[in-house]
């Protein structure tokens, strides 16, 4: 019964998202696409956090996804948004599969700092690379989606609809993963690695796979963001971008796969409002919001829904 309700709710949300893509004003379409792009990155962070790890370097895969998508058009002459998203995700998965071999050996602050360091290496390389536009970056533009030509003015709406469907599938798959033995095993590793080892499971293997999944999700998010903005530059791999993802994860909490998207939408909304009404102190506004969350909702925005549920 509960599962049917959840599926129905997910379906309604997805349909509403697709409908919004066609009916909403362009600024809202842009804001929602960006929120979904960041939300899917945070979805990967949620998986890592369930395993007891905090990555301050998801900007690496976000940037790789964005640049791979953009380079497919820039150098490869491909202007299909679906292929660009696939390229971004694949580039992030392959890189995470390689770097994960090293990072899966580290925990706590060492994991956090090493992940941050790796993202800053990419930032440094991009800044120095004149072929990739150096600090200015370069533009990209999708002309079709899965082979279907995009009419002028519909690109962003199609992208939002695609983003809704892509992240809905990703969130559902992650929800299934977390509810399975793998999800329990990840939480068990967060609690007590020694015992997991003595029960016969490879802690390294679980951390590695979760890291690669998180990298792939960040790559998808990067591709979506690049297509939404129509531009890539090294700032998307800078440590403040990675910090923003952690901010959103803490804001939403790790209780549910919906939480990252809820908090990403709140974050983008807050930032838009703060930039508009308090342009000189918008970071302070976000900081105060975070302070309030930590003090009053330490388990994140998602716990608000749970409290309401209990009260009812």
């Amino acid at each position: 019964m509960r599962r049917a309700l959840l599926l129905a709710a997910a379906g309604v949300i997805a349909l509403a998202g697709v409908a919004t893509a066609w009916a909403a004003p362009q600024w809202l379409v842009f804001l929602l696409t960006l929120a979904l792009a960041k939300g899917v990155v945070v979805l990967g962070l949620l998986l890592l956090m369930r395993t007891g790890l905090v990555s301050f370097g998801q900007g690496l895969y976000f940037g790789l996804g964005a640049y791979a998508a953009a380079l497919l058009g820039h150098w490869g002459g491909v202007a299909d948004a679906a292929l660009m998203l696939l390229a971004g995700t694949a580039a992030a998965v392959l890189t995470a599969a390689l770097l994960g071999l090293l990072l899966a050996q580290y925990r706590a602050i060492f994991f956090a700092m090493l992940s941050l360091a790796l993202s800053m290496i990419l930032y440094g390389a991009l800044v120095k690379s004149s072929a990739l536009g150096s600090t200015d970056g370069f533009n990209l533009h999708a002309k079709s989606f899965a082979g279907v030509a995009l009419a002028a003015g519909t690109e962003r709406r199609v992208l939002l609809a695609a983003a809704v469907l892509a992240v809905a599938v990703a969130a559902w798959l992650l929800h299934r993963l977390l509810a399975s033995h793998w999800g329990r095993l990840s939480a068990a590793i967060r609690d007590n690695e020694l015992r997991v080892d003595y029960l016969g499971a490879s802690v390294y293997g679980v951390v590695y796979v979760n890291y690669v999944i998180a990298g792939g999700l960040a790559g998808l998010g990067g591709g979506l963001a690049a297509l939404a903005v129509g531009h890539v530059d090294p700032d998307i791999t800078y440590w403040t971008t990675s910090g923003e993802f952690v901010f959103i994860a803490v804001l939403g909490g790790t209780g549910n796969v919906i939480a990252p998207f809820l908090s990403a939408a709140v974050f983008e909304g807050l930032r838009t409002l703060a930039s508009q009404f308090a342009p000189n102190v918008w970071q302070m506004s976000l900081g105060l919001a975070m302070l309030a969350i930590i003090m009053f909702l330490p388990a994140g925005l998602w716990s608000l829904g749970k409290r309401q549920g209990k009260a009812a």
Partner: protein
Amino acid sequence: MSPILVAEGLHKRFGAVTAAADINLAFDDRTVVSLIGANGAGKTTFLNMVTGYVRPDRGQIKFDGRPLVGLAPRAITRFGISRSFQVPQLFPSLSLRENLLVAEGIAGAAKEADAMLDRFGLGPYADRPAGLLPEGIRKLLDVAMALVGRPKLLLLDEPTSGVAADEKFGIMDLVMGAASQVVVLFVEHDMDIVARYATRVIAFYDGRVIADAPPDEALRAAEVRRYVIGDEVRHAPA
């Protein structure tokens, strides 16, 4: 019948402390062996060497004919050796049932979590977070998780430490009942528990084995009375 576990010439030093000095032991199937000794005598080091947590400086350990030294704990567990800990090693944020389900999933032993809930009488606590359980229940859960994978050899490190005196025998009855089909090695300081449940006692002192005999004989040995039981010698069972 060839022994299931064999330790040959084990040596281990931690700085100036000798935790194992030429340990040679063999364990047959279906035996319950108690390892006794004062703190620092080398009992837990022996368990840690068997389970791969500590690597001996010298010597060999074989289980079912397969060498264990140099293998990771998870590989040794896969051979059929499980252990519990002096301080229960649980997953505190997960419920008691989820703790067992993690063990069940790793072992690929379907329905064993429910079987352990019944066997150890843990049902009433099944949905409570493991971090909030009473110590006696935590001890039982620790052992139950070790048994989920149906090991051939079960190592218990002080299964009744930290438990109220009137609960100790109840816990041991449950543990021994559930582990009746496996070889059990348990580290214990309570000589009443040792005398009641062990079929063989191995006493350690200063990294050496000073006695290896049935309980009544081992607990009467002069070196055991001097170095292990100490003042309790006056109250030891005749």
